[in-house]
């Protein structure tokens, strides 16, 4: 049986791959493998060590850590005992956490994508992106929200931690191209 009568690199090849993975057993196996690879790239243990170093450097700052998936946000929340907001967080608790962050009662926050739209995020002077999607708009919005120095002494900083030699490298490059293009134009 020929399961390779489509080319994943051609136009619509990826869509064909996704379609096939729902009913073709081999396609399904490939899909599961791809999900695992992405998961590993996103949550690489190394990233936590890098984050560890950043947090040591910035523990006196006001820091927001961004992740692209909920699981990783919760992992970080547990590992570094940092308040966490995801789309699963109840409104009451989200409001409370943001308010405490605003008043300075909390100095750190980890969140998945929910802060992107419609939520008034208190100012922070350090942003750390642990993994993300290639969306240009989302990235620019995140930057805009982070780049607010809280005092005159220090500039705001944004870090992005990516895993070398994975799809993330490509995604990150493409994303930054997007941002500089829009800044020039």
């Amino acid at each position, binding site marked *: 049986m020929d399961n390779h009568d489509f080319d994943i690199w051609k136009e619509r090849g990826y869509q064909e791959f996704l379609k096939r993975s729902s*009913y073709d057993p081999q396609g399904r196996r490939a899909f*599961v493998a791809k999900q695992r690879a992405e998961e590993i790239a996103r949550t690489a243990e190394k990233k936590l060590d890098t984050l560890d170093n950043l947090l*040591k450097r910035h523990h006196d700052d006001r820091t927001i850590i961004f992740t692209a998936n909920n699981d990783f946000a919760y992992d970080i929340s547990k590992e570094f*005992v940092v308040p966490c907001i995801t789309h699963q967080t109840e409104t009451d608790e989200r409001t409370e956490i943001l308010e405490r962050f605003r008043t300075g*009662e909390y100095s750190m926050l980890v969140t998945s994508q929910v802060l992107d739209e419609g939520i008034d995020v208190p100012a922070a002077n350090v942003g750390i992106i642990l993994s993300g999607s290639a969306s240009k708009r989302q990235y620019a919005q995140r930057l805009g929200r982070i780049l607010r120095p809280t005092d005159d002494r220090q500039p705001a900083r944004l870090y992005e931690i990516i895993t070398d030699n994975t799809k993330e490298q490509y995604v990150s490059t493409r994303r930054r191209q997007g941002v500089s293009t829009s800044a020039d134009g």
Partner: protein
Amino acid sequence: MLTADLARSRTRNGTVQPLFIDVGDPQYRETAAELIQIFEDHIGEPKGELEETIDQLTIADTDYKIVQGLAKLLKDECEFETVAAAEPQDIRQLLFQKSNKTYPIVRQPTLGEDTQKLEVYSTVADKLGISLEECYRGMYADLDDNKRLVQFGHRVSDGHEDSAKTSTTTQLTGDSEESYAEDAITVDWLLTRYNLALAQAVLYDATRMQIRVWDSFGTVFSYVKLFGLMHRIYPIDGAGNRIADTDAADGYEAILDGPASLFSKSRKYGIRMANFLPALPLCDRWEMEAEILGDEATGNTVAFDLDHTDDLSSHYSSQGDFDSDVERTLAQKWERANTDWELVREDDVLDLGAEVMIPDFAVEHPDGRRAILEVVGLWTPEYLDDRLTKIREADADNLLLAVSERLDCSSEDFEGMDDRVLWFKSGIHVYDVVELADEHATEMS
């Protein structure tokens, strides 16, 4: 039931057919057995781990949509609960308050002033009087993924009390937990349920259903009423032709129509028909013809036919001993009420000429007077109009209708139109029925 995305059917020449699976096929039996095993192994474990195991499953080359469908049916038999030694939100708040004073919390200790997370967790655990592990695991125990599988079918996880399930609730959502026959979860049970669920999924888009049954009428029509389906029932002969004489009837035909005007852009009514379907295989001989909305834009429909030769089997109870919420509540209220009138269950078929009605209750007075009460839960103006006309024509003077106001289809249109209609909002009041009975009851013959 299956979610719409897990439905599997094929449409050809204006007919739609679910893609049933062969219950005897070793491949599907292996898949079903493995899935059941996975659920049993995950009793007491977090929901997220169960879902991830299913998500990464590739069994016996079975189409993943079938795997997901089977898993959905098994998940319907599960109960998940937050299991934690203290309120998770309290644990979190204490942890964050404590940690904020002790940052940085580090993985690799340095020579500077830093903290290990263990210190934070143990301080909070002591404060709450719980163990370190309970504190760590309880922190996010309320997340959906972290809820524990506490019950799967009849199997309960250790240390968890079997919660007595309330049976027979009919909600207007059509999502009702009817009285299931008590079954253990086996490979046969699962594969049989799956085929039934595929047929049910086709009915989500049903606009009209016609059924014919030649036995178990009482049970079937109890389910029609339980799911609040608008119905017209006609006596038929052995060949399925309508006949005029109820006494000579071999079976009954029922038309269940879904009013597009009332429920357009909503699957609610189709879901009721889907809920009703498992009642049919309780009969030895039955037929069903449904119209399924094929294309929402054009309103084109396709045909969906099933009968007793399709080898479906039911998990519904064949004991007709259940009531809708409205009926049960009325019966309970009646017991507490102070009236000479008595509420009794009515099983008799009421002849309306070419049609029949199956009323819910009779109200009887010790002096020999009697009235019949029919509860109409779901209706359109056309349906109600039709009912009232038929009832008037049939000279059924002692028939009372209790009609729900809850649906937003202008009860004002009918206000005062018929003095035997009792409008109710959430429940029927005993004394309203008594008042109408006093007016309209007739002597028992």
